[in-house]
């Protein structure tokens, strides 16, 4: 075991982690631990754009953006945070441009902007062009630009280091738990490393892999959320997961909403533009939860396409090929590569795909992690998809996440470095790596009969069937029971690779453990929320219930004296400033 000491440690090198690293490296001795090489992070998969009311192509302002964000999130958004997001959006886009990001340009040479779902002029009058973009590879350009600037700033990376535990230490005088460090597993050697740090930022991304049809990478397994949760920190609003309307049928690979922003149309088997029925004003550009439900309603009512009627079409055939080549080259190539379909002439089969975790580790607007509704954990920060600020509430608007990772990545990078400048190290607990050593040894030595891949597939199929776009008490209960069964069987998982070198067999087993923990939290939180709001739609409670459920869910892991685990649910008020909840219509 090796022990390292840094002022600030950042877990994750996606957009949020690297944006934080650029700030914190200038101010404190910083290490970035990442299970992937930085440029492999899933921020690179983002296509459509990053929202900011630059008003480069038409009238716009950050107040409209704030309103759209709150309405899009079905009023579960903390309004003070949304205001910061929308206000600081403008500088964060300009920051990226100055760092070198090659945005598409207007004829005047300014950053070009396009339409995106849920973003509107003057509180819902009509779609507005707010998304700043670089072709349909905006996330790729953000990830590359941030990595380039990390190279420039000399950021210190530990690549292919998997963080598996968070170390907290109770202050003997005050009883407050402070962050002391993290424990990481080095892929290349199997060695375990303890990183002691004054400040720690979790920026480890999402957890989409508990679904089967998903736009998320294989590596998005919620490691950060699970580590915090296992150490007794709450997870907020985990029942809210976004299902993006346009994933490639069966594969889940995303086709950006930008395709509809450019004029693409959703059609059922009769060729009907069905979104006109569900969202007369915004039509195909209504918010994602609305469009995903509309697609499944069409499918359920027998208007789906294909022999099994299990998908609909994204039609781009009326758009000029030059426009597709210029604005949507990557996604049209996905259709050609993976489906053998030519989007110039043929519509693309799509279905909703599990896309984005609105919930996560609760933080305040400085990125400080909360131990309960109000107490911060000194020295612990989170930013990006792993965190819940909450700027996305019950449903995130497209282009607001690339924004979130930049705004709150930067904020937490500055706050963490300032914290480590002012504070001392907290002592490491005795045997700091014990939990990880035990976990690794148990898996390496297990002779049980269960296989990781089997359990993972059963979990994913169960989640797709029971807690996706439509949920009921009965389906969620089915999921809860199944997850409990899988968690039991997980204790009998064994792996074939017993070696130390690049043991991805072992890490997949650990990742599955994280997915199971988080799936249980998601299903349990969803069961208790007897209303429909944003991405959480209960057929048995189809309306939003502001009287009982205008509040954030806070899920805690409880361990009884006899070792039995359970989930305790609590709730946290939503911060409302100037926007009163209204019915959401598009």
């Amino acid at each position, binding site marked *: 075991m090796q022990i390292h000491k840094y002022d600030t440690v950042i877990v994750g090198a996606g957009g949020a982690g690297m944006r934080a690293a650029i700030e914190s490296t200038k101010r404190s001795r910083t290490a970035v631990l990442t299970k992937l*090489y930085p440029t492999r992070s899933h921020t690179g998969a983002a296509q459509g754009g990053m929202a900011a009311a630059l008003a480069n192509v038409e009238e716009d302002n950050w107040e409209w953006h704030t309103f759209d964000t709150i309405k899009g999130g079905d009023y579960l958004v903390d309004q003070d945070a949304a205001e910061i997001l929308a206000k600081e959006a403008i500088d964060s886009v300009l920051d990226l441009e100055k760092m070198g990001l090659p945005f598409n340009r207007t004829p005047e040479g300014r950053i070009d902007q396009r339409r995106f779902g849920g973003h509107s002029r003057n509180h819902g009058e009509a779609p507005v062009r707010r998304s700043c973009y670089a072709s349909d590879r905006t996330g*790729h350009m953000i990830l590359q630009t941030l990595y380039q600037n990390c190279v420039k700033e000399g950021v210190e990376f530990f690549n292919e280091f998997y963080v598996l535990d968070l170390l907290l230490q109770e202050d003997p005088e005050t009883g407050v738990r402070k962050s002391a460090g993290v424990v990481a597993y080095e892929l290349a050697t199997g060695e375990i490393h303890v990183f002691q740090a004054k400040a720690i930022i979790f920026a480890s991304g999402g957890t989409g892999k508990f679904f089967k049809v998903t736009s998320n990478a294989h590596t998005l397994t919620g490691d950060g959320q699970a580590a915090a949760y296992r150490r007794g920190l709450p997870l907020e609003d985990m029942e809210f997961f976004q299902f993006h309307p346009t994933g490639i049928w069966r594969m889940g*690979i995303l086709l950006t909403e930008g395709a509809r922003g450019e004029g693409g149309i959703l059609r059922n088997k009769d060729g009907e533009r069905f979104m006109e029925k569900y969202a007369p004003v915004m039509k195909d550009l209504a918010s994602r939860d609305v469009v995903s439900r509309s697609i499944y309603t069409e499918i359920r009512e027998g208007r789906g396409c294909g022999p099994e009627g299990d998908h609909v079409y994204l039609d781009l055939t009326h758009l000029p090929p030059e426009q597709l080549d210029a604005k949507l080259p990557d996604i049209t190539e996905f259709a050609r590569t993976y489906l053998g379909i030519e989007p110039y002439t043929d519509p693309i089969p799509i279905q909703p795909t599990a896309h984005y975790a609105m919930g996560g580790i609760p933080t305040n607007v400085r990125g400080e992690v909360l131990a309960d509704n109000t107490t911060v954990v000194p020295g612990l920060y989170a930013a990006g998809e792993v965190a819940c600020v909450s700027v996305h509430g019950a449903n995130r608007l497209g282009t607001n996440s690339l924004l979130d990772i930049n705004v709150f990545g930067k904020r937490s990078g500055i706050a963490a470095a300032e914290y480590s400048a002012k504070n001392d190290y907290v002592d490491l607990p005795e045997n700091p790596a014990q939990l990880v050593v035990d976990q690794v040894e148990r898996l390496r030595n297990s002779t049980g009969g269960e296989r990781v*891949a089997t359990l993972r597939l059963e979990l994913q199929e169960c989640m797709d069937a029971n807690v996706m776009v439509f949920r009921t008490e009965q389906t969620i209960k089915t999921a809860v029971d199944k997850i409990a069964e899988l968690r039991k069987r997980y204790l009998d998982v064994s792996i074939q690779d017993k070696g130390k*070198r690049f043991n991805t*067999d072992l890490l997949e087993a650990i990742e599955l453990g994280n997915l199971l923990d988080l799936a249980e939290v998601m299903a349990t939180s969803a069961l208790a929320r007897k209303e429909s709001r944003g991405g959480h739609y209960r057929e048995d409670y189809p309306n939003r219930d502001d009287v009982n459920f205008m509040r954030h869910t806070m899920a805690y892991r409880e361990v009884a004296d006899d070792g039995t685990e359970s989930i305790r649910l609590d709730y946290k008020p939503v911060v409302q400033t100037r926007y009163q909840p209204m019915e959401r219509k598009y």
Partner: protein
Amino acid sequence: MATPTLEKSGKAPEPEAGFADSPYITATFRIRRFNPEVSEDAQWQDFQISIDPKERVLDALHKIKWEVDGTLTFRRSCAHGICGSDAMRINGKNRLACKTLIKDLSPEKPITVEAIKGLTVLKDLVVDMDPFFQAYRDVMPFLITKGNEPTRERLQSAEDRERFDDTTKCILCAACTSSCPVFWNDGQYFGPAAIVNAHRFIFDSRDEGGEQRLEILNDRDGVWRCRTTFNCTDACPRGIEVTKAIQEVKRALITRRF
């Protein structure tokens, strides 16, 4: 390394049989295995699996790892050609496993899969990427500007933006560099990927570090080593005209105009 031998073999469980129109075929994947914890020698191993030929090579590797042999080791993340993790030599050509469909590989014959060449193999299909990223860092892959920053964005015409569009697509997968015979013979050569990333800045109208970067590439391990074999262009999964970019850098070195 020893001569390739066929020593081990594994077989995946068949999918539910009985459907005449089953899309599944039986394909053989001949994979070059190497694990110094077990043996100093690399060897070829055959795996026969049933799989839908419309699936990706990555799906086949997963099927083998998940159902037959958990020790099979490779990198991957996004599974749709965007993260650059899984460049490998498939039937002798560098490609991304997640962007290569089995049906496009004549699956009636064994499909060979091995690590990319020119970088040290660490285990099975995993190579040491550090020298590759070092060459990238050496070309100063970041925007260099002088003078005061504007308050708003820097202006750039759509034409100027288009000038370097192609080379912004790079995902640093190393398929190009590890298909280059010059790089195989001499790992000191910067390699095409680093030059592509230098090109991305040299031809960006906002950048003022072009001279410095050109000096770096004028080095004896720089662009002049390129013998225009076009392997890199053929290998690039992002469709970047790599050789053209290298030629443009060479021309800029001669004319000092970019």
